[in-house]
């Protein structure tokens, strides 16, 4: 056997240890399933076997889910149905076994792994922060397809199960115990022996009755068709509100679960198989899966051998960005200097970090002592005296070139030749910051996104002078911080800010032409953006936007594109966005029907009265194509080195619709020729800014996809 070892103990317990070859994790695959089938047959034929224990030989996982490469390779729905039906048949067999089947879980037990555990009679999990159970399928545009949609609600109740599957929320061991997903918490190590003991006990005494504790409200909702109807309706409504119907997977999950409740287990399982076939070949799932794979790709540092260890990190400027960067570093570095103009400012940043550590501790994700250790790594300071031997300094001070240059000079004076200086600027070219400094080879850009702990992207910006070891070290740190990193070339706005600027510009232009912000937001939400552009401007800050314009303006005007002066005008009137409650929307007025109210004065400042309606598709094209085209130009200019980086940057940094896979995947999905035609017609109507990137024409001519051969 390739994937398992099977052992029959002297007590007549069959112990199956999952140990997939080639890799640190166990994944469900066709070969895996074939072997399970064979094992089940063996055990069924051996009447002496009194019980069965399933466990894993891997260090920190049970089974992490299905083999994504295999799923991705499926070209037709039929193929997918055949594959998953096989899985169903095997799990059904296992479920029907007459002897007790025990799952001993430690580490990740996700997707297919959890579905395997669900057909066991008894689940035991190691009580440690490493043990995590859940269904992440929805993130790949899929549903738990090996019985998960049926067996999870049956075990832990509809109101707990549904959100788990819809949001991919995972449970740690204790939470899972509380939810009833696992039957017993066990101590680490010796899982096999623990399992054998339990199997013998259950073989003798029979399975214990499970009693699910649920609140009265949950009882009312779960125990009868009417209550369940409410749950399903609410869930669909919530999904629609959040995704504007762009993602089919959540609906499929609800459909499958509902079918099981209405027509029984068997029909539910059938429905699940059918929906899986459809989802696997859906463009949404393909895009999401590709994104996932790109992300996994980017978790590796190709130049790891050049990277130096960052033991001592310094963050200059401990505002929202600075403290966020420090927060994601407490588990990575030994010492983190929190430098600000005064100690109380640094202390205020530390308070926020403490809060998030405290939250994770309360949630059981970390131990008290580790919380304290991580907090203790933070050292507040108000000068550069402590900067001696610092490995990497990240500045997150005010976005002004002169201030940043001064910080760089101070840091250089206080540190040595092995200290990297990283700027967390979002738009100022790194080479301008490095101009005239002592060690330009040590200067790099590390552009984090706010809020840092939640935003997955880190854009690393290298200048022509940046040394390779510096890039490798920054990349290493970023990966260790849990970020998905793209390395891009220096230039105004780098990649992310640069492709965002035209999108924001188009939004302002539309407003100036008389559009209503809510309509712009709605149109783009329907297109798939998580946040509408008008809201985004308010959240990012009109001042920040205006500053970005200033940085990028000259580059665009060289291409014959004049940026709108709208943001500047608004800023002159004291509009800064949500932060000072003066933005495109009026934050003093109450929402009407969940809609924010626009600030009518903005209309006067921007012009375009009276307001008029725009065609939704036109809005979507104008706004989204501005970003997509700029991404193409960045690829053309070599700002990004490959389309993968461009897609990952746009999706994880700017919220480009994930189901579209990113600007480049979007072009591949839509067809370059079609995009080109749209661009050309927009150019005719609106001018130069819609002039398509040269390489778009090249792709059309060659007939190749951007992701050729993939």
């Amino acid at each position, binding site marked *: 056997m390739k994937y398992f070892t099977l052992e029959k103990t002297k007590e007549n317990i069959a112990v199956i240890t999952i140990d997939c070859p080639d890799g640190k994790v166990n994944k469900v695959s066709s070969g895996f399933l074939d072997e399970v089938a064979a094992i089940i047959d063996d055990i069924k034929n051996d009447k002496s076997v009194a019980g069965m224990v399933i466990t894993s030989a891997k260090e920190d996982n049970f089974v992490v889910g299905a083999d994504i490469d295999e799923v991705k390779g499926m070209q037709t729905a039929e193929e997918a149905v055949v594959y998953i039906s096989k899985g169903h048949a095997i799990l059904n067999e296992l479920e029907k076994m007459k002897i007790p089947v025990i799952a001993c879980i430690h580490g990740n037990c996700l997707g297919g792994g959890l579905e395997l555990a669900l057909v066991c009679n008894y689940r035991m999990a190691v009580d440690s922060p490493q043990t995590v159970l859940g269904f992440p399928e929805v993130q790949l545009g899929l549903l738990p397809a090996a019985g998960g949609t049926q067996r999870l609600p049956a075990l832990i109740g509809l109101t707990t199960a549904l959100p788990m599957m819809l949001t991919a929320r995972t449970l740690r061991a204790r939470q899972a115990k509380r939810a009833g997903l696992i039957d017993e918490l066990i101590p680490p190590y010796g899982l096999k022996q623990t399992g054998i003991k339990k199997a013998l006990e259950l073989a003798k005494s029979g399975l214990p009755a499970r009693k699910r504790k649920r609140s009265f409200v949950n009882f009312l909702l779960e125990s009868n068709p009417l209550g369940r109807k409410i749950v399903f309706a609410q869930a669909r409504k919530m999904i629609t509100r959040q995704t504007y119907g762009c993602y089919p997977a959540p609906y499929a999950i609800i459909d499958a679960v509902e079918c099981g409740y209405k027509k029984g287990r068997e029909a539910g399982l059938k429905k699940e198989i059918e929906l899986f076939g459809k989802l696997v070949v859906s463009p949404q799932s393909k895009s999401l899966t590709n994104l996932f794979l790109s992300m996994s790709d980017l978790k590796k540092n190709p130049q790891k051998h050049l990277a130096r260890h960052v033991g001592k990190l310094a963050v200059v400027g401990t505002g929202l960005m600075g403290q966020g960067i420090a927060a994601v570093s407490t588990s990575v570095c*030994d010492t983190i200097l929190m430098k600000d103009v005064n100690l109380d400012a640094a202390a205020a940043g*530390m308070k926020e970090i403490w809060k998030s550590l405290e939250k994770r501790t309360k949630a059981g994700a970390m131990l008290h002592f580790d919380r304290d250790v991580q907090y203790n790594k933070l050292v507040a300071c108000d000068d550069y005296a402590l900067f001696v031997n610092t490995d990497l300094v990240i500045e997150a001070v005010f976005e002004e070139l002169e201030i940043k240059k001064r910080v760089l000079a101070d840091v250089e004076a206080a540190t040595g030749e092995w200290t990297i200086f990283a700027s967390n600027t979002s738009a100022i070219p790194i080479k301008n910051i490095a101009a005239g400094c002592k060690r330009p080879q040590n200067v790099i850009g590390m552009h984090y996104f706010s809020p840092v702990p939640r935003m997955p992207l880190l854009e690393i910006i290298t200048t022509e002078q940046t040394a390779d070891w510096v890039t490798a070290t920054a990349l290493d740190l970023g990966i260790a911080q849990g970020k998905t990193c793209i390395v891009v070339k220096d230039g105004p706005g780098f990649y992310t800010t640069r492709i965002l600027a035209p999108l924001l510009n188009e939004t302002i232009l539309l407003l100036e032409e008389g559009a209503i912000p809510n309509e712009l937001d709605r149109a783009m939400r329907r297109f798939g953006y998580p946040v509408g552009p008008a809201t985004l401007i308010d959240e990012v800050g009109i001042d920040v936007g205006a500053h970005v314009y200033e940085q990028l303006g000259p580059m665009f005007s060289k291409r014959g594109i004049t940026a709108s002066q709208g943001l500047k005008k608004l800023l002159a009137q004291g509009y800064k966005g949500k932060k000072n409650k003066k933005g495109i929307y009026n934050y003093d007025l109450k929402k009407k029907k969940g809609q924010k109210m626009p600030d009518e004065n903005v209309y006067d400042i921007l012009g375009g009265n009276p307001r008029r309606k725009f065609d939704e598709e036109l809005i979507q094209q104008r706004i989204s194509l501005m970003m997509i085209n700029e991404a193409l130009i960045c690829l053309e200019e070599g700002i990004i080195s490959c389309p993968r980086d461009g897609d990952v940057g746009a999706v994880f940094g700017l919220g480009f619709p994930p189901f579209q896979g990113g600007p480049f995947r979007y072009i591949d999905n839509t067809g370059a020729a079609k995009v080109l035609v749209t661009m050309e017609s927009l150019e005719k109507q609106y001018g130069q800014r819609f002039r398509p990137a040269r390489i778009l024409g090249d792709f059309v001519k060659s007939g190749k996809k951007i992701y050729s051969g993939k």
Partner: protein
Amino acid sequence: MSAADRERVAVIDACRTPFMRAGTAYYDLMAWKLGSYAVKGLIARTGIDPALVDYGIMGTVMADVATTNVAREIMLGAGLPGSIPAHTCTAACVSANIAITTAYDMICNGQASAVIAGGTEFMSDPAIKIGKRYRRFILDYTMFKRPKTLAGKLKLLKGMKLKDFFAVEQPAIGEYSTGLIMGENADRLARRLGITRQEQDEFAARSHRLAVAATRNGKMKKEIVPVVVPGTGKAITEDNGPRADATLERMAKIQPAFERKYGTVTAGNSSFLTDGASAVLLMSEEKARNVGLKPLAYIRSYAQAGSDPWEELLLGPAFATARALQKANLKFSDIKVFEIHEAFAAQILANIRYMESEKWGRERLGLDGKMGAVDMERINTRGGSLSLGHPFGATGGRLIASCCNRLREENARYGLVAGCGAGAVGNAIILENAQ
């Protein structure tokens, strides 16, 4: 090999947390946390790669049972690698001094080449024991006798009074061998040596005056690592012990604290309960050179001393200094910077009496005559334990930090750090400016 050729032991840096009166800003912390802040600050200040540290020694007096080897928790808590061992040492108020001199010994012996030593004390939550009878009852009931029958259980209750269930034992502050509380002994000493209330109050007021000045003119900042108590978002940067209003007139109004009727020792001229921690990085000269760290000072010599717990309980500095000078082959007049622990004004004045006395020098300190004349301009010029506070296990580290900084600023060659501790022990360290 003469002493001069031997590899010297360098003090690379020394720092401490702000010292806070017990029950104030550190109220919600623990001893190990304070210690970790000091050690972390030390690591950050020196920029040393933590993996280069070989060992940790921390002093503490009122140990928390939850962290009996508090040094180890401190080192782990400061994020140092688990491969660095650590032990806790306790020797009353010279615990940190002895932690530091033990580190010195380890480096001299080649056991280690880089050691973090210091101490921590947390008086905001001292262990309070339940009364002995109730303690006995619980232990017998649950561990030693474990009666099974009702009769057996009742038997354990026999002889117990209701108040036994409520009585608590005060944390021991008295001298076990003499039964005298330290303040009572200070009164006894003051009377024996003729130290007046006026003298004591003047010295205490001076301590406050100097501490306030050193805080205000920024000199104190150098030895302090700010503490941000988790969740408060406020940086603690200064000691809260020194009082600008501690004038002689006010001092004079305070009632005696120990011998109510005839005593002269008051809360004003005694050190107070304090939370705080200190940390010192010691290295062999060679290692410091190799890793590019510049020493502040070298330990020239040290000595420990014991004396009579009845009559000389607090005279450790005088006894230990005499020996340390001998070992260093230095004269008293060579010392230009004095940092002597101030447990009580009476105690430090008594030590000065001993140092300046022909009689005591000959009879008790083993000298030919008097040790030397003490120049008050050179002693504790930034205040001392009377004003800055006295976290028992940590004070020694503060004295080292202060002495090193003063050596630099005053451009002096030799400095003395000395302290006394319960049980009548003393420790003196002679530092040589590395500049």
